[in-house]
């Protein structure tokens, strides 16, 4: 593996029964790079993302994060996960805890911080996502966009150096999308390494350093936003962009 990359994926394979959803993916992500993954549903981009922190167990290949091969059983996956933040489509906030408890749970349980420090940090991250006034409320009372911003704050509280986003705005009402994307843009600006599965082409165009187009379990095409959106080389890419951009 190469030290200059934050995330390095080599020949990654994943199948469910006979259905091979990832057919040997290679991808390198540099520190502070923002990579957006686009493609039709079922193309394997979400599965690929979930392989990066071992929520899905790959059938073959290697995934190096910060130099650790997460496919290696000897590697303590919990330790590696502490440095990989993940944001889900459906937020997955813990309904049995208040907003601030959601955020402080992992830092306190994993003894990264004392309760007081964790609380102070949590308030800081709530400010970052613009929800300081919601500190002590039950997540049930939040709107979708607010929930997703809390989920981002929860992931940030572990001070990860890579953030994975799995369609973070797909479950949101259109008027909520902007706030969440704004938070993500700020993160990108501050130099966070981000890998984002998204259907927000505008976000990809504006923020991504690189756009990766998935098709049928393979990376069909990748490049700068300009290359992909303005001058796509592959027939599949053109078809896909025609469909999503001309709604």
């Amino acid at each position, binding site marked *: 593996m190469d030290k200059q990359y934050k995330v390095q994926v080599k020949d990654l394979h994943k199948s469910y029964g006979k259905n091979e959803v990832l057919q040997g993916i290679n991808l390198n992500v540099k520190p502070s790079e923002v990579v957006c993954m686009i493609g039709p549903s079922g193309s394997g981009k979400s599965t690929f993302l979930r392989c990066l922190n071992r*929520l899905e167990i790959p059938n073959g290949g290697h995934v190096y994060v910060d130099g650790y091969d997460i496919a290696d059983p000897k590697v303590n996956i919990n330790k590696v*996960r502490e440095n990989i933040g*993940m944001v889900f489509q459906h937020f*997955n*906030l*813990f309904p049995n805890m208040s907003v601030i408890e959601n955020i402080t749970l992992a830092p306190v*349980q994993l003894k990264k911080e004392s309760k007081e420090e964790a609380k102070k940090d949590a308030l800081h991250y709530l400010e970052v996502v613009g929800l300081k006034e919601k500190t002590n409320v039950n997540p049930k009372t939040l709107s979708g966009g607010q929930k997703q911003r809390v989920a981002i704050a*929860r*992931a940030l509280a572990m001070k990860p150096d890579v953030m994975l986003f799995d369609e973070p705005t797909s479950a949101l009402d259109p008027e909520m999308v902007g706030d969440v994307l704004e938070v993500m843009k700020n993160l990108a600006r501050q130099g966070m390494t981000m890998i984002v599965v998204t259907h927000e082409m505008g976000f990809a165009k504006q923020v991504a350093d690189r756009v990766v187009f998935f098709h049928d379990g393979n990376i069909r095409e990748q490049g700068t936003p300009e290359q992909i959106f303005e001058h796509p080389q592959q027939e599949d890419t053109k078809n896909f962009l025609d469909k999503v951009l001309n709604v």
Partner: protein
Amino acid sequence: MRKIGWRKILATFIAVLGIALGWSLVEPQSVSAAEPTYTFATNNTFEPFEIQDSKGGYSGKNPGIEIEMLKKIAKHEHFKYKLKPMSFNGDLQALEGGQVDAVIAGMSVTNERKQKFDFSKPYYTDGVMMAVAKNSKITSLKQLKGKMVSAKSGTSAALFVKKNQKKYGYKIRYFDSSNTMWNDVKNGNTDATFDDGPVLQYGIRTGVPLKIVTKKPIDAQPVAVGFQKGQNLALQKKVNDGIDWLNKTGQMKQIVNKYTKSDKTTKSSTASRTIPGLLKANRSALLNGLWMTIQLTIVGIILAMIFGLILGVLGFMQSKLANGISSIIIYIFRGLPMIVLAFFIYMGLPNVIGHKVPLFLAGIMTLMLDEGAYIGAIVKGGFDAVDPGQWEAARSLGLPYRKALIKVVAPQGIKIMVPSLVNQFIITLKDTSILSAIGVMELTQTGTVIISQNMEGFKMWLIIGTIYIIIITLLTWLSNYIQKRMA
């Protein structure tokens, strides 16, 4: 991490075992140093041989022929005894299983039984008689073609009706106690019943509305005390010597006459046949039964919860072996009828472990295994019902499996489980009544015993049923309150 999990589970198992063991030690086992104590299985009701008092014991003035006999023999031959009242079938199984030292239950000496048991000298000759409802036109066995007849399972009457079924062409229904059987005849569900002569005669004299239609006992057979074959020879000798002594001194005849000839022993106190009267007369017996039901329910539920939680967590763990163990245990104990489980623990298990299982412990173990299996399935289902996204979110933050389970998934799962668990508590309370089959003196068994004395089936079951409804209503209120507090 997994290692710690297993250790905890093991520790809990040992704790449960410890509680169970402690219980068996607490069970009263009064033993006098000088005189040996023997355990005799006997009948719940087998008048005039055994007549239980209103508390289900035999300390009344007229406990029945065999109980008076035993009392005298024990005193004369210097031994102590403990009685275990059960159904006659239960008596035989308990003797076979070595749960008891002897059976004294109006037991006829048959060739079949001689193969399995040793018998004392006979002290009575007993034959089967047929009785019908007062208004019935049946007068002989020949009129029984296509009719329904009844007998108590395991008795010589049952052997008789089975043997002659082809000859007379009737259908047979088996019962466990005389009075339910007689009530069935009275209500017209059964056309004729077969029972031991003295039992029928005594019952009719105390007010059972049946009539005996056979002129003399069919298949007269001697009655004796039964022992495990080749075991307890000292006790066998003592009992035989005692019977000889009773015969020689004329006391045997006295006892028999007291119950079959005189009216002294029939307690036809028609004074209080109303529901308040019955309640008053049986107050302490009913309260004792209720208390036993409550004890069984509470201890049973606590142990079942622990057992069920272990099963649920095993079923949910990331280990195929643990999942398999949990599934098999749940499958077995959910599939087994509770009554079979109770019989197995109380009568079958002693054969294997070579040690008696105290009655209360047997009851509690039955509840723990049966209800625990259901609770195990509820716990597993509750955990499974938690959104998998919760797991993923917790694990992706770096929380290990156990922390994710305890902090995130379990609290949500428990909330989902609460209504099903409450339902299971109510079912447990009702299920304690099944333990009456092995003779636990809980509410239902108390009812059976009381009815065997006063024959007031309708009113007594009404009372018992009402008591159950009342405590279940209270329990429901309590659980609704708890659920509201938890929400």
